[in-house]
């Protein structure tokens, strides 16, 4: 039997996959059936009855089972006695649907009148007014006259704070439960619930702190009325007053597509400011969602602490100077230096990285280039066996498998966590290997808790088991069996509790697993198969691709001479063997990598803020934030995505690539570039993987399902349709030719005596950018150290501990729990700390 079902809706014949709901089927051919409670990403509940239509099925003769025919030969249709909810009704062969009969029109008007019985007349002051499905539906289908007495309306709380981020207006709620269902089904944070019944039904939060979820902002998007509003946008502007600009989130490696809404503001001196951030549909990346970090971490852009003018140290003081003076001084200083090195953050755009490496390699003839906080390796492996272009985690389900190693996706890359979890819900096998249990563990089919020092060993064991037929009895055996027999296999790897070298072997081990060829094809080079690195920052991938690496040129060509890596630079600065350091978008002193500027002769910093590194610099260049300029990021799935300027630059700041190319011009790296798209064009010539891409093709869109953002705006709340580009994935090597198994080095284990320190990521960890977000401040992760009771003989819950490793010293609150294994300690709330370290603890006396 075919998987398509043919039906007729309002005279249009269409074929849709079996199991489709009638409302969705109608939508797919452009027939809008009004809905409130239905959302294509949620299970239907049929709560609001807005979607009632006439549905008829062909009649069959009871005796023969043959279809009954009218006199003219057409099939006889039985429409039953009443109307049916099209959001719950599943399509059937030969079904006939009428959405525009008198009965349907009439019931729509009545239902809307009913919805408005208790709905307040708040539209003028409601943040949803202007993009409200209820408003729109009343305008389209409402009766425009009410029989209800105004003073009989139910009165309720209009200002209920559900946590710090979301406010609820109980009067406006139409009880569709979209928010509750989103939290339960999609986010799996069951923190909202209905309380009471009937007319007194109200939304309550059951968590402490309230609405404790990384996804809360999404409920305000899908709420079909203005019942849920976000703290940062409340009363900020009317929807029609804002200008949308397409953007890409710069907070993690997922690269969610978003829309930045801006408006000129009198209180900001007439400048356009960011009012809110909404998801932008990209079904292969973030569907219709954003995590709260991406949504709310934009305050830093408008911070008064932004650097606005170039500065130079004169007589010991940093003073504002002109661009020409600063650029000339920097060029002279760099050329005169006996040795130079460049250090970059991992949130710059591809264009910035490209110009940085050009400045160094071509202009300054130096290969001393690296990123700050290099925590995870394997970029070269990813280039070979990374997840294939065209993949979409949404397509993984029964028969497929996902492996997640050494990463807490929920904290590091929330959208991937969501999509992996949903794939597991759809039946994909999920194997999780980590040193402690994480949010993903409970969804895993095989949860292998490995002692952190042994994660790589465990994976290697898994790989060797996968290569041979085993009895399949042990837990590892079973997991290996599941993975290797899966139709599609995607492997994520992170760096939790691993040293840089260990992550490199981990990447290779996983590549070897993916490359194993049993009966079928290997799990590389075809759609929905391959490796995904959980990079710690938004454009770590781009830094790899553009050759911000001491040993690799753009497109992973080996450099003739290996330059200094970050560790060598820090050492060189301390002992005087490095003369000049150029830091772009990084804060090595603030992160604890360098104690001070050491014996550097010249320190140049290109930054948004006066960081600890910038304070000690000789020359400072103010850079533009991501919202003020255009550029491209490449996400962990190697999707190159374009973002657009939303607001005007702060002060006299310039985009990073421009500063670098103007400096490059002064040191002989070629004429300065003037337009971002042209930088991208020259970049595609050097980075062969990007060949064929340009700003136009990155800006192209295709039709996506579900259809959102039409005039109706029933689905996806006010999420904007994507009109500005879906990005392009570059093809891994395995997609065009066979890749051989990777040579593995001898097992490296960094196990030492003492408590092994695992730095567990938290989504809201203090940092230069997130610190400026007013709404997220109360949710910031506290610095804690979790130890097993066996190891915690001398300490108890709540003690303040001094944690020392060979690199950093932090104060943390002790948590004693057997969630962590004996011999390990889990540190939370600290960002920059790479690799495995041994913690030495001491208690601070009260």
């Amino acid at each position: 039997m075919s998987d398509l079902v043919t039906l007729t809706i309002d005279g249009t014949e269409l074929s849709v996959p079996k199991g489709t709901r009638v409302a969705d089927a109608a939508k797919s051919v452009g027939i809008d059936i009004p809905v409130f409670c239905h959302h294509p990403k949620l299970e239907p509940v049929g709560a609001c009855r807005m979607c009632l239509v006439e549905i008829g099925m062909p009649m069959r003769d009871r005796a023969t089972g043959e279809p009954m025919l009218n006199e003219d030969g057409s099939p006889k249709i039985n429409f039953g006695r009443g109307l049916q909810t099209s959001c719950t009704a599943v399509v059937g062969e030969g079904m006939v649907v009428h959405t525009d009969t008198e009965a349907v029109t009439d019931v729509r008007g009545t239902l809307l009148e009913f919805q408005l019985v208790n709905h307040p007349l708040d539209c003028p002051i409601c943040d949803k007014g202007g993009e409200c499905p209820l408003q729109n539906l009343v305008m389209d289908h409402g009766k425009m006259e009410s029989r209800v007495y105004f003073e009989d309306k139910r009165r309720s709380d209009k200002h209920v704070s559900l946590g710090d981020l979301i406010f609820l207006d109980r009067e406006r709620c139409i009880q569709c439960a979209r928010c509750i269902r989103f939290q339960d089904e999609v986010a799996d944070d069951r923190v909202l619930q209905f309380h009471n019944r009937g007319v007194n039904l109200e939304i309550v939060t059951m968590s402490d702190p309230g609405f404790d979820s990384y996804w809360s902002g999404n409920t305000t998007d899908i709420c079909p009325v203005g019942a849920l509003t976000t703290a940062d946008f409340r009363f900020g502007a009317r929807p029609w007053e804002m200008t949308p600009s397409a953007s890409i989130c710069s907070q993690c490696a997922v690269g969610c597509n978003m829309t930045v809404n801006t408006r000129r503001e009198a209180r900001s001196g007439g400048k356009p400011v960011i009012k809110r951030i909404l998801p932008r549909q990209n079904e292969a990346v973030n569907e219709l969602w954003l995590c709260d970090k991406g949504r709310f971490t934009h305050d830093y852009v408008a911070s008064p602490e932004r650097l606005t003018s170039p500065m130079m140290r004169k007589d010991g003081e940093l003073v504002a100077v002109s661009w020409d003076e600063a650029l000339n001084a920097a060029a002279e200083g760099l050329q005169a230096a006996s040795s130079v090195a460049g250090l970059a953050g991992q949130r710059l755009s591809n264009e910035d990285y490209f110009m940085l490496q050009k400045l160094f390699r071509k202009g300054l003839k130096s290969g001393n280039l690296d990123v700050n906080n290099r925590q995870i390796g394997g970029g070269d492996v990813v280039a070979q066996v990374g997840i294939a272009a065209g993949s979409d985690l949404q397509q993984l389900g029964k028969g497929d498998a996902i492996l997640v190693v050494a990463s807490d996706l929920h904290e590091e890359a929330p959208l991937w966590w969501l999509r992996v979890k949903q794939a597991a819900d759809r039946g994909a096998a999920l194997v999780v290997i980590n040193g402690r249990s994480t949010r993903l563990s409970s969804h895993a089919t095989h949860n292998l808790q490995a002692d952190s020092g042994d994660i790589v060993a465990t994976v290697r064991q898994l790989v060797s088991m996968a290569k041979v037929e085993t009895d399949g009895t042990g837990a590892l055996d079973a997991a290996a069996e599941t993975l290797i027999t899966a139709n599609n296999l995607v492997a994520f790897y992170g760096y939790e509790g691993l040293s840089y070298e260990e992550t490199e072997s981990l990447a290779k081990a996983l590549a070897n697993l993916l490359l194993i060829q049993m009966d079928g094809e290997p799990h590389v080079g075809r759609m929905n198969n391959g490796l995904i690195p959980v990079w710690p920052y938004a454009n770590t991938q781009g830094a790899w691709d553009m050759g911000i690496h001491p040993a690799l040129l753009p497109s992973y060509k080996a450099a003739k001479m290996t330059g200094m890596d970050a560790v060598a630079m820090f050492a060189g600065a301390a002992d005087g063997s490095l003369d000049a350091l150029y830091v772009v978008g990084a804060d090595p002193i603030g992160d604890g990598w360098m104690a001070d500027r050491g014996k550097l002769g010249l320190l140049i910093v290109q930054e948004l803020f006066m960081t600890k590194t910038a304070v000690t610099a000789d020359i400072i260049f103010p850079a533009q934030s991501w919202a003020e300029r255009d550029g491209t990021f490449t996400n962990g799935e190697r999707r190159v995505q374009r973002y657009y300027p939303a607001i005007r630059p702060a002060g006299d700041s310039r985009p990073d690539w421009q500063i670098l190319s103007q400096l490059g011009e002064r040191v002989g790296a070629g004429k300065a570039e003037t337009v971002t798209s042209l930088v991208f064009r020259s970049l595609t010539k050097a980075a062969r993987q990007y060949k064929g891409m340009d700003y136009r093709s990155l800006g192209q869109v295709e039709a996506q399902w579900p259809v959102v953002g039409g005039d109706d705006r029933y689905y996806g709340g006010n999420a904007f349709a994507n009109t500005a580009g879906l990005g392009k994935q570059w093809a891994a090597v395995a997609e065009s030719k066979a890749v051989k198994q990777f040579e593995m080095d001898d097992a490296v284990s960094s196990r030492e005596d003492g408590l092994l320190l695992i730095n567990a990521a938290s989504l809201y960890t203090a940092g230069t950018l997130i610190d400026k977000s007013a709404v997220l401040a109360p949710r910031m992760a506290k610095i804690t150290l979790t130890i097993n009771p066996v190891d915690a003989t001398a300490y108890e819950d709540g003690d303040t501990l001094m944690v020392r490793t060979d690199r950093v010293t932090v104060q943390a609150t002790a948590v004693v729990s057997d969630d962590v294994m004996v011999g390990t300690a889990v540190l939370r709330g600290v960002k920059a700390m790479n690799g495995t370290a041994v913690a030495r603890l001491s208690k601070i006396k009260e």
Partner: protein
Amino acid sequence: MFETFAALAQGMATSFKHLFMKPVTIQYPEEKRQVHERFKGRHVLNRYDNGLEKCIGCALCAAACPADAIFVEAAENSDDERYSPGERFASTYEINLLRCIFCGYCEDACPTEAITLEHNYELSFYDREGAIYTKDMLIVDVPVNGRSTPQPVEPGAFNRAIPEMEDPK
């Protein structure tokens, strides 16, 4: 010849007659012309009797304005610092009177009758910026017995932004 003279005399007679008529010009600014009741002059922002501002910062006036002359920014009220009934008030309210065409659409759009076009027609400015009337300039004086805004109020007393509607007859 005679015809020319007659026409001339006719014209002179008209001039002569007007010498004794009441002049239409007035001695502005000492003397001011009375305007009609529904004359549309400069806008004002009204207050309720207790002094609360009628404007709730909804910006519907700005949306209705065909000349894009109005600019509104809203903020949230609290019972300790209340500007207007309900949750929202206008923290910034500006009208650019060089753009305004005095059509009165803002008046029509306002859900609380907060903005009305009154009888002041004396609008002259030395520069463009002077043509931008801010909230302070537009808002009427606090009525007698009223209090100025922001004012502290009894919690929950003014939680409706829109005045009560009439019931269907």
